[in-house]
């Protein structure tokens, strides 16, 4: 690997260019019209304009990216996250053009991207999945029998539904008896199909994920991350390692993740996401992300391993450079995703012109960003402005340092979510790591009512 094309923009493009440069690999940026003067465009050794500003006409156009790779003499392509990173067709097209795709094989991306196929692979590898009926249940009697096996509370879901529609949670057999017919009728009306299936409902769920690395024949884990603090399914704060996870649960989860990687011969960095039932200590496979994740720096700060550099080495054909015992979690890391959004106005995205930009730095503070003084926040892409990542010898120290780092963060010109995180640090439940996947949205709603 001599020349790497980075098929992305923003902070992750900057991050990848830096890792490549650390390894002595030349870089090619691709950019839209709006990003002609962006940091990633200027930082790379070469840059190619691939289309107009909207992502659908630039960063998502496979042919334009392949043409840029050909014209610039690149021999490898890193997809970053988002955009084309989990499209099996893109990975196949890159390989088909004789280039190295920095990620798993297209066939693995495809399998893991298909929810049903991914769950089957998980089961085959002995990884627990959410208990439920494999398909629809024929009627209320079958539903009642299935619910006894699954365990209450159960979620009643319309087989033809989606996006959370047609879901009911019932606590016991009586409630199920009452709800079933009505839910089925509603589903028939709304989706033209009244088939219902059942799944265990986890009341106190944490979102915990395991970072993995594989080289195609061997696999290992790099511990876990806690990602429960989400708004509309977007993570806002992540930590490594997960504070609510016991040593025994961590062992079972990381073992399961490595088994899953071996099952598919996983190559590259990946993340196995789990739902952890805080009441029972059970964990269930949700999905596997076959790419680098936004929150990867938290893992880097506690393990000392550069995940993007490892992706590049593995893509270049090197075997894993670490034994599992080499991976030791040291201290605690927290990441805050600072977005150009207005928390006072329902998180309305806020593109615009930046003025002064002051980024936090100093001991054990990392800020991954593309933002620069007098730069522009374009309206065409996601609102992530910067990731503030903080390390501490323990969680307490990381929390204190977070306060310092977020107070230093200041950009003029657009509202950001940085101030909201300072408020979050004042909350006893956050300091005590006493939260679940629904906690942040409830806090935001309560906060909205009291102001």
């Amino acid at each position, binding site marked *: 690997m001599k020349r790497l094309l980075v098929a992305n923009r923003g902070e992750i493009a900057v991050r990848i260019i830096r890792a490549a440069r650390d390894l002595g690999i030349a870089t090619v940026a691709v950019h839209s019209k709006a990003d002609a003067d962006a940091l990633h465009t200027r930082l790379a050794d070469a840059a190619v304009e691939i289309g107009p*500003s909207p992502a659908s006409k630039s960063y998502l156009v496979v042919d334009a990216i392949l043409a840029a790779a050909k014209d610039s003499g690149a021999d490898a392509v890193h997809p970053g996250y988002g955009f084309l990173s989990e499209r099996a067709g893109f990975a196949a097209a890159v390989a088909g053009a004789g280039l190295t795709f920095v990620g798993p094989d297209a066939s693995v991306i495809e399998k893991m991207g298909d929810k049903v196929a991914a769950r089957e692979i998980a089961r085959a590898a002995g990884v627990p999945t959410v208990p439920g009926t494999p398909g629809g249940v024929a009627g209320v009697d079958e539903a009642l029998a299935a619910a006894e096996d699954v365990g209450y509370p159960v979620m009643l879901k319309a087989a033809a539904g989606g996006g959370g529609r047609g879901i009911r949670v019932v606590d016991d057999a009586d409630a199920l008896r009452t709800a079933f017919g009505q839910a089925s009728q509603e589903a028939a009306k709304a989706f033209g199909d009244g088939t219902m299936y059942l799944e265990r409902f986890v009341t106190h769920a944490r979102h915990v994920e395991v970072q993995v690395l594989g080289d195609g024949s061997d696999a290992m884990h790099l511990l876990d991350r806690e990602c429960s603090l989400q708004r509309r399914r977007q993570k806002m704060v992540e930590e490594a390692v997960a504070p609510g996870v016991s040593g025994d649960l961590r062992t079972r989860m990381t073992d399961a993740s490595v088994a899953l990687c071996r099952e598919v011969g996983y190559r590259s960095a990946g993340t196995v996401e789990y739902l952890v039932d805080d009441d029972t200590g059970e964990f269930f496979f949700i999905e596997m992300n076959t790419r680098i994740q936004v929150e990867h720096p938290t893992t880097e700060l506690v393990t000392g391993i550069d995940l993007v550099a490892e992706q590049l080495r593995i893509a270049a054909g090197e075997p894993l450079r670490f034994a599992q015992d080499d991976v030791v979690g040291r201290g605690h890391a927290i990441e805050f995703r600072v977005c150009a*959004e207005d928390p006072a106005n329902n998180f309305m995205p806020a*593109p615009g012109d930046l003025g002064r930009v002051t980024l936090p730095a100093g001991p054990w503070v990392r800020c991954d960003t593309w933002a620069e003084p007098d730069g522009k926040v374009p*309206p*065409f*892409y*996601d609102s992530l402005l910067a990731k503030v990542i903080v390390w501490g010898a323990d969680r307490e120290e990381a929390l204190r340092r977070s306060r310092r780092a977020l107070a230093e963060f200041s950009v003029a010109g657009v509202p950001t979510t940085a101030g909201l995180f300072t408020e979050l640090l004042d909350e006893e439940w956050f300091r005590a790591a006493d939260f679940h996947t629904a906690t942040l949205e409830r806090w935001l709603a309560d906060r909205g009512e009291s102001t």
Partner: protein
Amino acid sequence: MPRHEVVSPIPGVFYRRPDPDSPPFVEDGGAVAADQAVGLVEVMKSFHQVAAGAEGTLVEFLVGDEDEVDAGQPVAVVETG
């Protein structure tokens, strides 16, 4: 006839359809109610409807489907009364 300009309150990409497989919110020359959506603006991966703002006939779109728009830019004209 009084002309009312429909303005996009935010910058982004303007769409005339709720999704690629659906018909447009309003055809040229179609009748609109004041609170009726005439288009969608995508800003930073979130979508915001643009309402007509006045009852009448939508006589003209000033921007095309998937065109870039600025905050405060007129996107369509409604003839009222």
